[in-house]
């Protein structure tokens, strides 16, 4: 988790230089790489890991808030090295925010005894062209 709240801090520090932006971008990417090492804990099967999963999601949310602030400040400075990679990492995690550990735990329970679809069945259900 970031020790600095970039959302609040950056606006108070005047104009951001390209060099400073690139340092912050590199730091944010390094933090994302470290957080991704714990991906298997995002949606754990074991109930006793749910709390840790919630905290990991909170850490990612904190990271995303900082990165959104950084991207807003860095965008006018283009080109900033690593900024596109950072946007990519941000998009991935913003997608994942739509599924909480609790939602996946509930879905897992429903999927175990319930109906699952093959890809072909899903294509038919969606009335897509069968590629098979």
């Amino acid at each position, binding site marked *: 988790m970031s020790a600095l709240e970039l959302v609040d801090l950056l606006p108070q520090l005047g104009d951001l230089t390209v060099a400073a932006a690139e340092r912050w971008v590199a730091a944010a990417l390094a933090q994302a790489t470290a957080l991704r090492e714990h*991906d*298997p804990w*995002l*949606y*754990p*099967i*074991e109930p006793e890991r749910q709390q840790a999963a919630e905290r990991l999601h909170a850490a990612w949310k904190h990271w995303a808030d900082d990165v959104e602030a950084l991207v807003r400040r860095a965008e006018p400075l283009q080109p900033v090295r690593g900024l596109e990679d950072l*946007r*990519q990492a*941000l*998009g*991935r995690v*913003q*997608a*994942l925010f*739509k*599924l909480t550990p609790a*939602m*996946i735990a509930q*879905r*897992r329970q*429903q*999927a175990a005894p*319930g*109906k*699952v*679809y*093959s*890809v072909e*069945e*899903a*294509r038919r*259900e*969606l009335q*897509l*062209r069968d*590629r098979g």
Partner: protein
Amino acid sequence: MSYSFAIAGDALADLKTLDSWLQEEVLDEIDTLGASSAIFPNLPNAGDTVYAFTRVHSGVKHHIALVLTRNDSSKTFTVLGIVHQIQT
């Protein structure tokens, strides 16, 4: 290691919220994963994993993430969730 892929009802409901071109892309990606486990990144020993990919459509980048649960006894991955985010 060869695993088949299945899609949970909840994930199919997720898929139905996407545009049809993106539905096709997601199902093609799942087909590709099923055909070549070599491209699948760092599988955990058990439990769930996240697989993410991007597509560019009409100049807009789309991020898609799949939450997958793995069953070693049935050699199956079940897609539990499909989420989508447009890059801002």
